[in-house]
């Protein structure tokens, strides 16, 4: 009887079973799904205890019963009493509302199904307890009558009296391979059915066949099955196809017309062996949430106890809306409620205090084990702990990032988390990371521990050639997920995925899946999954870029130290700083990156400029050659030469220690040589200068010459050096040979025209050479047109000539030096100074350079640049011309050239800082020393400058002349030495006769060029200067002066950032309140402009520096020209092409002028 049975079958009975049950349950974390549930459970508990009492009585009764159920009942009851004694965790199958009705405990039947009832109620909550009980009893009786029927028929009477559903172990032992179908077995027949209906059809056939079993004509189908992975197909097992037809006939959804196919015997087993791609959820595994506000969030599986119910317990970082209540209401009022809106609270660990503050104490209740219950969810250690259905989780391609995972590690301390947990998450995708030839280790399954080499890779399985062991050399197939790459300590590998991609290194440790390697680059230990590394012979080249950083780019390590990136290694930069020290920095340590390669220039030891891309070599030391890749402050030059192994071929040199490898004509760029511009150096511009050079005619170095006498007659070459007074070493172009030859045998050859000119040597010639350097420099460099190529000295036009020089003055103005102040003294701002200077007629003249007249004059006078630039020989002509014609011009020329001389001439180096001493500009000095002859023809400036070494003298000398002559007293009245510089200007200014020029003057004057401002040195940089120069010279694209608006009324302006460099005002007017708004200029009030808003007509005074012209935006608009030679003219727009507007021809015009868009401002009130 039951008791006996109990004792006789101890296997799973009470004692054995109990611990296991408890164990299972104990494993489960406490769940408190609903606070109300607790109470219910307590109630249940009470009920349960009463049950126990009842059951004890019943137990006695049970003894007498001979029912099959008895045994089970007993077992179950014991079980249940255990359940009830122990406070049972909430069960999802329980209807929490259910209350056990004690009255019904008497009956065995009821007792039997007491727990069931709870369940049933879940499915169909019904009205009254009692009523329901009766109904259930009836149902039960009916079932009992029905059930045995089937059972009897199915299993026979013997079965009925035996224990119900005894486990039959008969078929367990046989290995499956012995179960392969044989010829005696029924066949499988494939039938096509409607996709998606396989299941229902299978069941229908089952019912049909089942019914037929007891009819007179049974359908002899043994089984029907379908596989999820074979949609639209079901299989029937029968000996005859007739039976199959009979079975499926009349069933909707079966496509009998498509035939019934016999499955070949060898394909039968595979049909059942197919395995669905399955989810293998294990605790600790990472998943992602699919729906709701947590979509995409990472979660960790914490228990899979109820996996079989399709539910797993996960924990994740909650997103609780911690918006204060008022704000929330506000948001709700705005229609952006937390419901339905796009609002998504940020991820934040649950904090009781925070949540209580916002939602109130009542909403958050502490639960078991320090957990909190809030809004129906349980929060433990800050995480939300929740049971979720598997279909709400993404289990594939989770790929948690280290950042995400480390958030989970959170409280336990960063870095404590185990990489292997991530590895687990990523493991099942590992076949993608395998490549043929990889060494792998099988770590699970029957072949665990085997090593091998990957031979082929299928989607899920790989075949490997075993190494070692009994099956050495054999090919075996293993699931890809069961292998991991095998690496040995000491192997050189490269990381192929992840944030350390491309880092290579040597393995120093292997622990399971995790490989530790010492990187070749950063000398740091990196832990990676073995799947993410690959054997690599080479040291990783590293990527070429890292975010913003490219190899060979200039970065600032600190405000005074520049460096060039020589290599990007992982997330680090290897740089070579200006002192030649190589170091590894993080991008975050790099304070500045200057995209200056286009503008950076420096002067080499020969006085020539070098630019990025030039091939240079060292004149001292190792004589390394290389291509210039970057220049910092015109002083430090980084060169690259593939042949140097060190620092990836990059080395750094001082500009002054380099010389051009290629023949280079003396086309020094004035702007780059201007010491004033180079003054950005902290230690003063002087240090930049090339070392003093022995006096002589070294200026002819790099001149392209042709040999006119001797053996080498007719050969061309470049002067590389000057030997003694009369000889030069010429590198022949033909055979790359260097010969020493008398300079008398050489003639300068113009590479463009082929014309030859006498080569100047020594004395005056030297000076002229310098002049050439100057002449070519600023003009060519500035990209000026023919007008600039012209030899201004040669050409008569004193005004134009002066104009030509003026830019130099303008640039001086830009330098923060007293001269500028003094000279142009109008504004304290150096840029403005430049601008102011620009306004002077001198500038006008300069701008006037654009006028054909000037250009023409230039052309006729000086010829082309090269001619001028290169030709020392022409100098006399120039000198004569200038001197001869107008002393003014001559003088102005000198002044203008000054900076050029200063920079170009090594002599300039003698004055440590030309500006520091209040003596005349280096220009004055230079011409003084070297251009003596020149000064001869110029009676005014020339002689005085040279003869009088004192600044005062120098200044005073030129001053009176122009002053007297031209009645431009203003500049001269200023007593500062700066006058010297400005002195020439007025003369020129006066001599600039074209009003057009005057008007266009402001254009180039806009001191703050885009380049000037952003450089860290504040002062004009070479580029800035260069740009300014090009502006002034080119004169075409003039940037507006900051105060342009002061010249116009009734134009439409817009407000933007201050245009004025070094402005004391904030960058944006009224913090940008008016930025972008359009206003009309109504009147002027000093530097303030009274503007009226176009929108609401309200008036506001805005400093001119914030105002920008509003360019025309369509045809037919009346505009005023605010820059260029047409400045002040009113035009009507006609047609736009790119940024240029063709305007309607005005009276006297042949065609309408084509004007730059940014030189036009729309008229406000037409």
């Amino acid at each position, binding site marked *: 009887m039951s008791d006996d049975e109990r004792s006789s079958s101890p296997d799973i009975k009470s004692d054995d079973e109990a611990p296991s049950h408890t164990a299972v349950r104990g494993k489960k974390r406490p769940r408190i799904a609903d606070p109300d549930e607790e109470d219910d459970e307590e109630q249940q508990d009470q009920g349960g205890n009463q049950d126990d009492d009842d059951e004890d009585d019943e137990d006695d009764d049970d003894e007498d019963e001979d029912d099959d159920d008895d045994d089970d009942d007993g077992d179950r009851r014991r079980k249940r009493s255990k359940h009830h004694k122990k406070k049972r965790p909430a069960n999802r199958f329980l209807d929490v509302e259910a209350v056990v009705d004690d009255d019904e405990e008497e009956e065995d039947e009821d007792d039997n199904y*007491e727990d069931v009832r709870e369940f049933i109620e879940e499915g169909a909550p019904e009205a009254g307890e009692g009523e329901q009980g009766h109904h259930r009893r009836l149902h039960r009786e009916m079932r009992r009558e029905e059930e045995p029927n089937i059972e009897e028929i199915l299993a026979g009477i013997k079965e009925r009296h035996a224990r119900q559903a005894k486990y039959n172990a008969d078929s367990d032992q046989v290995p499956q391979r012995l179960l392969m179908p044989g010829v005696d077995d029924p066949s499988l027949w494939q039938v096509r059915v409607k996709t998606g209906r396989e299941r229902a059809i299978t069941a229908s056939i089952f019912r049909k066949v089942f019914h037929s079993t007891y009819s007179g004509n049974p359908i002899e189908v*043994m089984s029907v099955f379908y596989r999820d992975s074979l949609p639209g197909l079901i299989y029937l097992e029968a000996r005859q196809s007739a039976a199959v037809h009979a079975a499926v006939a009349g069933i909707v959804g079966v496509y009998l017309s498509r035939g019934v196919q016999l499955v070949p015997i060898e394909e039968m087993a595979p049909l059942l062996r197919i395995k669905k791609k399955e989810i293998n959820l294990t605790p600790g595994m990472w998943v992602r949430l699919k729906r709701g506000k947590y979509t995409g969030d990472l979660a960790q599986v914490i228990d899979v106890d109820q996996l079989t119910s399709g539910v797993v317990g996960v924990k994740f970082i909650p997103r609780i809306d911690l918006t204060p209540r008022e704000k929330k209401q506000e948001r709700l009022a705005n229609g952006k409620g937390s419901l339905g809106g796009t609002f998504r609270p940020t991820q934040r660990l649950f904090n009781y205090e925070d949540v209580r503050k916002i939602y109130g104490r009542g909403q958050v209740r502490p639960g078991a084990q320090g957990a909190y219950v809030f809004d129906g969810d349980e929060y433990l250690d800050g995480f939300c702990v929740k049971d979720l259905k598997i279909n709400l989780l993404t289990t594939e391609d989770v790929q948690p990032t280290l950042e995400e995972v480390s958030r989970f590690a959170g409280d336990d301390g960063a870095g404590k988390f185990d990489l292997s947990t991530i590895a687990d998450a990523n493991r099942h995708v590992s076949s993608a990371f395998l490549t043929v030839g990889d060494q792998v280790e099988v770590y699970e399954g029957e072949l665990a521990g085997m090593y091998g080499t990957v031979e082929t890779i299928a989607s899920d399985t790989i075949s490997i050639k075993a190494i070692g062991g009994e099956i050495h050399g054999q090919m075996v197939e293993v699931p890809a997920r069961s292998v991991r790459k095998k690496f040995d300590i000491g192997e050189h590998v490269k990381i192929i995925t992840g944030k350390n991609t491309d880092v290579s290194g040597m393995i120093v440790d292997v622990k399971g899946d995790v490989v530790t390697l010492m990187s070749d680059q950063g000398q740091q230990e990196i832990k990676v999954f073995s799947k993410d590394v690959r054997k690599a012979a080479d040291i990783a080249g590293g990527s070429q870029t890292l975010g913003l950083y490219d190899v060979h780019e200039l970065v600032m390590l600190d405000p005074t130290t520049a460096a060039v990136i020589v290599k990007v290694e992982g997330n680090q930069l290897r740089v070579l700083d200006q002192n030649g020290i190589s170091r590894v920095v993080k991008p975050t340590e790099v304070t500045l990156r200057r995209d200056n390669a286009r503008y950076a220039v420096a002067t080499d030891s020969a006085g020539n400029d070098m630019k990025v891309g030039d091939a240079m070599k060292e004149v001292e030391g190792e004589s390394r050659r290389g291509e210039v890749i970057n220049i910092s402050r015109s002083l430090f030059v980084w060169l690259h030469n593939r042949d140097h192994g060190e620092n990836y071929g990059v080395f750094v040199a001082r500009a002054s220690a380099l010389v051009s490898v290629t023949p280079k004509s003396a086309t020094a760029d004035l702007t780059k040589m201007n010491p004033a511009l180079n003054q950005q150096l902290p230690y003063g511009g002087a240090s930049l200068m090339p070392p003093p050079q022995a006096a002589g005619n070294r200026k002819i170095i790099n001149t392209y010459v042709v040999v006119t006498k001797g053996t080498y007659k007719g050969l061309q070459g470049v002067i590389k050096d000057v030997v003694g007074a009369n000889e030069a070493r010429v590198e022949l172009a033909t055979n790359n040979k260097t010969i020493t030859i008398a300079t008398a045998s050489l003639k300068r050859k113009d590479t463009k025209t082929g014309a030859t000119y006498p080569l100047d040597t020594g004395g005056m010639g030297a000076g002229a050479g310098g002049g050439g350097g100057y002449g070519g420099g600023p003009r060519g460099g500035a990209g000026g047109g023919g007008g600039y190529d012209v030899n201004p000295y040669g050409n008569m036009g004193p005004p134009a000539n002066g104009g030509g020089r003026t830019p130099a003055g303008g640039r001086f103005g830009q330098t923060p030096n007293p001269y500028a102040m003094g000279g142009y003294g109008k504004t304290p701002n150096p840029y403005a100074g430049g601008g102011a200077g620009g306004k002077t007629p001198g500038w006008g003249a300069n701008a006037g350079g654009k006028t054909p007249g000037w250009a023409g004059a230039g052309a006729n006078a000086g010829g082309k640049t090269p001619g001028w630039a290169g030709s020392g020989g022409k100098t006399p002509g120039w000198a004569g011309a200038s001197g001869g014609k107008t002393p003014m011009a001559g003088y102005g020329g000198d002044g203008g050239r000054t900076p050029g001389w200063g920079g170009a001439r090594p002599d300039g180096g003698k004055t440590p800082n030309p500006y520091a001493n209040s003596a005349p500009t280096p220009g004055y000095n230079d011409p003084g020393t070297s251009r003596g002859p020149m000064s001869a023809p110029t009676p005014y400036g020339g002689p005085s400058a040279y003869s009088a070494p004192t600044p005062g003298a120098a200044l005073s000398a030129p001053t009176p002349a122009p002053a007297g002559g031209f009645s431009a007293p203003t500049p001269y009245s200023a007593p500062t030495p700066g006058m010297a510089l400005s002195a020439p200007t007025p003369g020129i200014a006066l001599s600039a006769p074209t009003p057009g020029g005057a008007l266009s003057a402001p254009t180039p004057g806009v001191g703050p060029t885009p380049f000037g401002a952003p450089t860290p040195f504040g002062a004009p940089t070479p580029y800035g200067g260069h740009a300014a120069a090009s502006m002034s010279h080119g004169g075409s694209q003039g940037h507006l002066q900051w105060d342009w608006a002061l010249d116009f009324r009734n134009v439409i302006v817009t407000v933007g950032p201050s245009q004025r460099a070094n402005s004391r005002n904030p960058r944006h007017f009224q913090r940008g309140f008016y930025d972008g708004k359009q206003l009309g200029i109504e009147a002027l009030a000093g530097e303030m402009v009274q503007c009226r808003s176009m929108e609401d007509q309200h008036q506001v005074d805005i400093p001119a520096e914030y105002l920008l012209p509003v360019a025309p935006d369509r045809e037919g608009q009346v505009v005023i020209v605010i820059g260029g030679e047409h400045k002040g003219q009113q035009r009507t727009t006609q047609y736009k092409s790119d940024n240029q507007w063709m305007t309607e021809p005005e009276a006297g015009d042949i065609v309408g002028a084509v004007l730059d868009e940014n030189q036009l401002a729309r008229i406000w009130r037409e």
Partner: protein
Amino acid sequence: MPPKVGARQPQLRACLVCSILQPLKDFVETGCPNCEDVVEMRGSPERVAECTSTIYDGMIAMMEPEESWVARWQRIDKKKRGLYAVRVTGRPPQDVIDAIESRGGVYRPRDAVEEL
């Protein structure tokens, strides 16, 4: 009578030992028709949840287990008629496995492919 299968029918659960498919209700009420003595889940929804699974693949309607090769292959040839799953994901509690072994059986996971 075989259970009806359809969208509106309760979800079927598969016994982790024999892979028979039944609604949870039936498992609770009558236990597993084949292996109730080892799984002992009658009356205990909790136990049913432990010993059965909703994650399964494929369905076999088994009408003649004694004769069927499918049944033999699936090792349900000694089991009752009914609906079975081809594959069931999940493992029963250890006590069930112990019980099977104590009866001289071998627990064969219903979610693994046996090596041939």
